[in-house]
């Protein structure tokens, strides 16, 4: 009984997904005598604009709540009263007048007052031709003479040009508040607000600092939204043409338009017409395109002779590579393909490795990030990817965000989480640090890094004890529940608190909130996977979702957010040592048969080496040659020194990249690939959506699309089946050999991508996985009993602090791309070590002071950043720059199942210099 009362007490508001059929709620009204249809709940302004009737407006912005402050959208209603069209909802049978003398008088005065205080310098204004104030002025016919008496001295505020990507010119600001509301409502960043209200009202940051010194994240959403020239991009050149493609940074897969002038990419803007980013972008996507035409791009193949790189012609380079590789025995070769390259590039690399080199030694960087997700989710649910779609996040009633820093690493997903909270969703954040998203959370759990299994088991025990489980779901769709339940026994609150350091009440509260609020969705990323028990962490999350029946329904699921643009695709394409494209097991006789038939060769069916194993074997000399495409393991993998040793030990190293990375420096041959803007292809984002990447400019220098290079090497080596004319032919072959992509081709994804599995032409794709059955052998979700194992390296007397690593919003991976964007370097140019005041004081160091950080594997000297986001005993570093290569410190201990290194926990000591 008590349990039941508790259940009722903790039962949050259950959200009902809005399934109202819009057609039933259509109403009719008249605007200036014209009959128009409108949806219930929309405003007069929205209705008018969607019917191509212009009503002057300035403070209205589609994504924001109406504000009614500019008083320009005044219209007359049936009662002859003036109302703001942006705030007034439509009603059936309304008669709205948008234009008469009385309305115009009001509008004109409002507009005149605004223009009188506005710097009228239109021709040289960067917003010329795209300015809402110009639009209003010409519509209302404002005369310069009428402004005289209203004109007062324009506020003498100097331009804030501190941000590398945009300028703030408050002399042109009309105080419409769109930027403030964008920052608050949409982003939740809240960097700016109105200040000094009165005569001197202006938009200000906290403390009236320059924008770059505020907590602005430079996403540029306000710049896009600003109706006038107060917020403008630094280089506002208009493109000559635009090409729709997919952002090359994180795994969200935002759709963008690249603006091109000549053969240069000059800007990027979000595409509003898609379900993923809906026009939103982050700082990298909007401003991080300068690497494309960067002068340091590799433009010619290079061969290292006498330790010096010499530029050579393509033929020579390809002959040289083919000649060298033909002497290498199959098992002595290994390839690493790139999660940044297209599906077609990845497919070519795995086909080359399997068909030409006769080995399955092919892997990609998912090994060091989401391999535990692939392995873990496959075991529980039968399929290792995000179970639901990004667009469903906003409709969730409860979000459990664990081991991910969405606002920094996947900013557009961060926006969706903020949107969900705005829609009333409960938010539980579990992270060792107080990351930005905690500001929006109902419950924050700061577990000690590496103790997730204990935390989750503790939560699940409470869910079971409080009978918040979904019995029907477990009964009908799951197996192994009793064994799992047995393993929960030892995770009583006291034990869990002792391991995780999290307050007991918080654990209970979080468990009850997740257990009783539906639909609930779990979002996680590398904070879960990059551990020696990463796969077990994933199991724990899978168990949690099964336990509460949050699987196979809208806005539920277990959702790994992918870190790189095409890491999902690289795995899908079979750049893994144990599966063919489309996750077809090597040991499956049917799969082997299918591929031998398609490739017309006998294939090796013994599992190849995983990435860390390749390096290990190379170190002892049993791998002789490696082909690394678009990866930089020297900086990105743990224990840098060890990796260098392995690569040095190779007889032959081919690196294919767009820049001279730290890894490329060690190569014997460097082949210049193309960036995403110079080739056709597809990327697959986190939600399994295959999206078109389009060639926007000709390849820079003599660089070539990666798939073409791989195919040309294969052809030089006399192989057949690599005679592709373009990327679409490769995709057609993929669709033939891998049933889960069977229904996808370039024509179908021209407008919008399709989420796999998509079996045939009629299949519309699969936004939600496991709706009926799981893809496991038995068709049931499999509970997995778990036992908490501590991380491989725990703090001790000698190394008393836990170092955990992550990303900055301004950079991407080892910054080979973002590091070539000057502005991003200005905003974040080196890796700091973040620590709390208490730890800093005990060492005796101040903010911004250089320190020595030492682990068992090496030492580096970053600057200290004192922050409240870190808890005592836990320090944090980003890993973007080779100058302070964080991965010199990290531990290469591996997860036994997925061989993913433990980036997130290692023991360090910080010393004053």
């Amino acid at each position, binding site marked *: 009984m008590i349990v039941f009362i508790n259940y009722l007490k903790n039962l949050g508001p259950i959200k009902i997904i809005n399934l109202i059929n819009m057609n039933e709620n259509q109403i009719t009204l008249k605007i200036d005598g014209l009959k128009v249809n409108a949806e219930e709940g929309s405003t007069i302004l929205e209705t008018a604009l969607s019917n191509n009737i212009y009503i002057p407006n300035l403070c209205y912005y589609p994504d924001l709540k109406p504000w009614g402050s500019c008083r320009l959208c005044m219209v007359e209603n049936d009662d002859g009263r003036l109302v703001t069209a942006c705030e007034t909802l439509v009603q059936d049978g309304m008669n709205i007048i948008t234009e008469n003398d009385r309305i115009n008088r009001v509008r004109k005065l409002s507009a005149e007052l605004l223009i009188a205080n506005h710097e009228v310098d239109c021709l040289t204004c960067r917003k010329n031709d795209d300015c809402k104030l110009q639009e209003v002025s010409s519509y209302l016919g404002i005369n310069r003479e009428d402004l005289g008496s209203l004109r007062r001295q324009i506020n003498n505020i100097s331009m804030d040009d501190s941000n590398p990507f945009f300028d703030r010119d408050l002399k042109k600001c009309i105080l419409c508040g769109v930027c403030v509301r964008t920052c608050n409502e949409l982003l939740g960043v*809240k*960097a*700016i*607000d*109105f*200040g000094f*209200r009165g005569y001197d009202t202006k938009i*200000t940051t*906290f403390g009236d600092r320059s924008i770059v010194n505020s907590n602005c994240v430079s996403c540029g959403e306000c710049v896009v939204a600003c109706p006038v020239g107060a917020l403008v991009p630094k280089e506002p050149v208009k493109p000559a043409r635009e090409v729709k493609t997919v952002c090359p940074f994180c795994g969200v897969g935002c759709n963008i338009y690249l603006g091109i002038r000549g053969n240069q990419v000059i800007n990027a803007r979000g595409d509003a017409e898609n379900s993923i980013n809906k026009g939103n972008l982050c700082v990298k996507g909007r401003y991080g395109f300068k690497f494309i035409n960067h002068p340091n791009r590799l433009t010619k193949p290079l061969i290292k002779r006498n330790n010096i790189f010499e530029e050579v012609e393509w033929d020579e380079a390809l002959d040289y590579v083919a000649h060298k590789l033909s002497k290498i025995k199959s098992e002595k070769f290994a390839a690493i393909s790139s999660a940044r390259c297209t599906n077609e590039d990845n497919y070519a690399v795995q086909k080359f490795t399997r068909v030409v080199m006769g080995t399955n030694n092919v892997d990609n960087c998912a090994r060091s990030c989401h391999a535990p997700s692939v392995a873990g989710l496959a075991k529980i649910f039968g399929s290792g990817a995000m179970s639901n779609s990004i667009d469903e996040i906003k409709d969730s009633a409860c979000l459990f965000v664990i081991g991910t820093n969405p606002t920094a690493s996947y900013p557009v997903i961060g926006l969706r989480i903020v949107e969900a909270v705005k829609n009333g969703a409960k938010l539980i954040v579990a992270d060792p640090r107080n990351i930005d998203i905690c500001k929006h959370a109902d419950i924050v759990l700061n577990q000690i890094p590496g103790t997730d299994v204990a935390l989750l088991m503790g939560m699940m025990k409470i869910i079971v004890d409080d009978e918040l489980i979904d019995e029907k779901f477990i009964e009908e769709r799951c197996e192994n529940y009793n064994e799992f339940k047995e393993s929960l026994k030892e995770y009583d609150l006291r034990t869990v608190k002792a391991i995780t350091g999290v307050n007991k009440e918080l654990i209970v509260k979080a468990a009850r909130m997740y257990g009783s609020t539906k639909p609930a969705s779990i979002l996680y990323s590398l904070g879960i996977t990059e551990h020696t028990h990463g796969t077990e962490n994933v199991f724990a999350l899978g168990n949690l979702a099964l336990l509460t029946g949050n699987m196979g329904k809208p806005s539920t699921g277990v959702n790994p957010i992918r870190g790189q643009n095409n890491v999902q695709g690289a795995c899908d394409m079979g750049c893994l040592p144990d599966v063919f494209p489309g996750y077809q097991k090597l040991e499956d006789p049917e799969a082997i048969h299918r591929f031998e038939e398609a490739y017309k060769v006998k294939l090796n069916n013994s599992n190849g080496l995983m990435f860390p194993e390749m390096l290990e074997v190379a170190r002892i000399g049993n791998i002789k040659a490696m082909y690394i495409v678009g990866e930089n393991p020297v900086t990105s993998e743990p224990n840098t020194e060890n990796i260098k040793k392995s690569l040095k030990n190779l007889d032959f190293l081919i690196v294919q990249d767009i820049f001279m990375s730290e890894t490329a420096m060690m190569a014997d041959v460097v082949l210049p690939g193309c960036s995403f803007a110079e080739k056709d292809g597809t990327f697959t984002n986190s939600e399994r959506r295959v999206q078109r990447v389009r060639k926007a400019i000709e390849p820079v220098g003599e660089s070539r699309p990666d798939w073409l290079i791989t195919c040309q090497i294969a052809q030089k080596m006399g192989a057949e089946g690599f005679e592709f004319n373009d990327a679409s032919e490769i995709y057609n072959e993929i669709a033939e050999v891998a049933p889960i992509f069977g229904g996808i081709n370039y024509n179908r994804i021209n407008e919008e991508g399709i989420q796999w599995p998509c079996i045939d032409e009629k299949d519309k794709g699969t936004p939600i996985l496991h709706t009926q059955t799981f893809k496991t052998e038995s068709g049931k979700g499999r509970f997995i009993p778990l036992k908490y194992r501590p991380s491989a390296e725990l703090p001790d007397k000698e190394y008393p602090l836990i170092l955990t690593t992550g990303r900055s919003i301004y950079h991407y991976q080892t910054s080979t791309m973002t590091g070539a964007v000057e502005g991003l370097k200005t905003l974040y140019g080196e890796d700091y070590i973040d620590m709390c005041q208490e730890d800093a004081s005990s060492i005796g160091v101040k903010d911004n002071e250089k320190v020595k950080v030492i682990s068992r594997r090496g030492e580096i000297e970053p600057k200290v950043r004192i922050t409240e986001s870190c808890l005592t005993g836990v320090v944090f570093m980003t890993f973007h720059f080779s100058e302070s290569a964080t991965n010199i410190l990290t531990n290469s201990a591996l997860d036994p199942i997925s061989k993913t290194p433990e980036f997130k926990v290692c023991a360090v000591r910080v010393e004053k210099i």
Partner: protein
Amino acid sequence: MSKSLNEILSTFNGNKSELIPILQDIQSSIGYLPEDAIIEVSKFTQVPESEIYGVATFYTQFRFLPVGKKHIMVCKGTACHVKGAPQIIEGIERHLDIKEGEVTFDLEYSLESVGCLGCCALAPCAMINEEVESNLTLKDVKKIFSRMKNNSNDKES
């Protein structure tokens, strides 16, 4: 008299509506609103720092810099304005090398303009701490500062 920030916050519940009383208490205790204090108030009330700053800048009662040992309030009322208050302010600004609303680096002087000191017959006038200086001219500005300097030197020796 000066309570710690935690003591002040402990008397409130952390509601948004308490923002202005909290700021008033901080100012009366610390003398101004330091940025660190605003950050703490932001955490306490869940009101963004930028919004608190926006609120605080609306009211002339809130200061963001400490007051100098000698706080100079120059009257900018109608009579004083007509009799040259703006020039007096400019003169003091030049002399102290600070702007209105600021405090000198050594925290000795701070300067602000006020609505009306209520002694229009003595315009233009100013108050330095509790004392009124009347019928000010630019020449007087120099004299006043050298006098104050001498006084404080005397005290120290």
